[in-house]
């Protein structure tokens, strides 16, 4: 598992990471979301041992990154955002080199390298030089290098950047297959991807975790304004809007159009929970209540609200 306690990192007078704490359990894919400059890559670099932390503790599979860095790094597969590779080496040479430096050897090594290359879709370019690879294949090579020693923990910084939609799906499938046995921490700013790939999300802004949980939990947390969607039948939309506004706790009513003929829909915002009042109003007016549910914020809304973007 990944265990991070009160991580702090300063660049001169700028605090890039400000007291971050979280943990990721085996079998879990956790997404680190945040706008550019939020501190995602710095956090991941500290976790991977590339950068030292100012204070705080990082444990990978129980090994402390500060006290037993070698043991921690042995458990780790890391794909950096910039994915630096040795341009003048061949793809196979690169795989052999990293396998050797990871301490892998023996008769099964070639098979293992071929398996990593196949898993990441590298077979068509395995005899090429790294410098000749397209961005997509470079990213796949970075992934293959991260997983070829079968680490317990994977830290992937923007693993699907530079990939086309098909390749993105392949990477998502690969991560889904890997997560059975591994602890995976992924950073991304592509929200639908985070939603599709991750079991849980950490939203980071200005070096702090501002929210965490599943998309549903985050949606619930963000729906504190009590927004409800209500669809009624049997009256005109103007009359319904007027009467909905007259419900005591309701603060605003927005007409959302007619999803089906004669059944206008409205988003109703209220100070408290207006559902009983809405039900009573519908009963009193003999308007069949076709639909009534709480409007959850989308991941997009959540992200924008938490990180200060336009809503």
């Amino acid at each position, binding site marked *: 598992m990944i265990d991070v306690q009160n991580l702090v990192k300063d660049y001169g007078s700028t605090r890039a990471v400000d007291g971050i704490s979280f943990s990721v359990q085996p079998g879990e894919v956790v997404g680190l979301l945040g706008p550019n400059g939020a501190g995602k890559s710095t956090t991941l670099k500290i976790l991977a041992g590339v950068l*030292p932390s100012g204070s705080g503790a990082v444990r990978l599979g129980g090994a402390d990154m500060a006290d037993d860095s070698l043991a921690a790094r042995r458990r780790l597969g890391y794909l950096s955002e910039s994915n*630096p*590779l*040795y341009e003048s080496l061949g793809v196979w040479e690169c795989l052999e080199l990293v396998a050797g*430096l*990871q301490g892998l050897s023996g008769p099964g090594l070639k098979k293992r390298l071929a398996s990593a290359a196949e898993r990441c879709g590298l077979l068509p370019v395995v005899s090429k030089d790294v410098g000749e690879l397209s961005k997509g294949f470079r990213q796949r090579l970075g992934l293959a290098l991260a997983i070829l020693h079968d680490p317990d923990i994977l830290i992937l910084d923007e693993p699907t950047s530079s990939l086309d939609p098909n390749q993105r799906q392949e990477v998502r499938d690969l991560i889904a297959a890997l997560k059975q046995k591994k602890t995976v921490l992924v950073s991304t700013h592509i929200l639908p991807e985070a939603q599709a790939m991750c079991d849980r999300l950490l939203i980071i802004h200005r070096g702090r975790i501002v929210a965490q949980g599943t998309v549903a939990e985050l949606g619930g947390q963000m729906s504190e304004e009590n927004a409800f969607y209500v669809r009624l039948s049997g009256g005109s939309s103007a009359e319904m809007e007027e009467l909905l506004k007259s419900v005591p706790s309701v603060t605003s009513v927005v007409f959302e159009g007619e999803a089906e003929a004669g059944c206008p829909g409205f988003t109703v915002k209220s100070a408290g929970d207006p559902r009983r009042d809405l039900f009573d109003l519908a009963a009193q007016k003999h308007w069949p209540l076709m639909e009534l549910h709480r409007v959850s914020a989308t991941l997009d809304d959540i992200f924008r609200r938490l990180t200060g973007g336009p809503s």
Partner: protein
Amino acid sequence: MNRRAAFLVALKELRESLNSPMPYVFFGVFFLIEGWFFTAPLFLNGQAVMDDFFAGLPMILAFFLPAFTMRLFAEEYKTGTIESLSVLPLRDGEIVLGKYLSALAAWGLMLAASLLYVFLLVLLGSPDFGCIAAAYLGAILLGAFYASAGLFASSLTRSQVVGFLTGFLFCFFFFLIGKAAQFTPGWPGALMTFLGVDSHLSSFWRGVVDSRDVLYFLSGTVLFLAGTLASFNSRRWRSS
């Protein structure tokens, strides 16, 4: 210290170097210059000796070894591949040693190619093998010393050009200070003589292996390697 890891790092550096045209150019130019130093006494004076070949090394190597070592750290810093190395389960000492071994191996290959001259001398005359063996030992030690200086210079910067110029300055300093000592009286002159490579190589060139000279080169090498390790270690807090 994991020797296999250091060996693999050295192999990586050699592969990367040999995949680029630079070492071949340097190899050609080195033997063009040294070929002149070898053939001039042979054909002009009719002497089967390698004195001029070895005498030219302190100046020529001050250029060629930093040219090989300049990319070893600077390129990794610039392209960011140092990050890829940093996440692997390697000690900093293994990385430094591996890179240093690759520079030594490159110098070893060049020296091995120069054995062709010894073969020619055997065909054309009767050279003093003891003298040549001692001179080769001196050349190995000089290369080891200069390579460590070049590696240290490369570890200080992200620019290969700056790495080369700094490495050249370090090596040239130890070459020049011995020459300048001739014009400096008293204890400063003695100190400069001691620091310069000339006074420690002359006995090797004469066929004498003096343990004090061996110690000079080894201690200089260890000092520069320790400096390289310290500089490489410091990359983490330097990037803070």
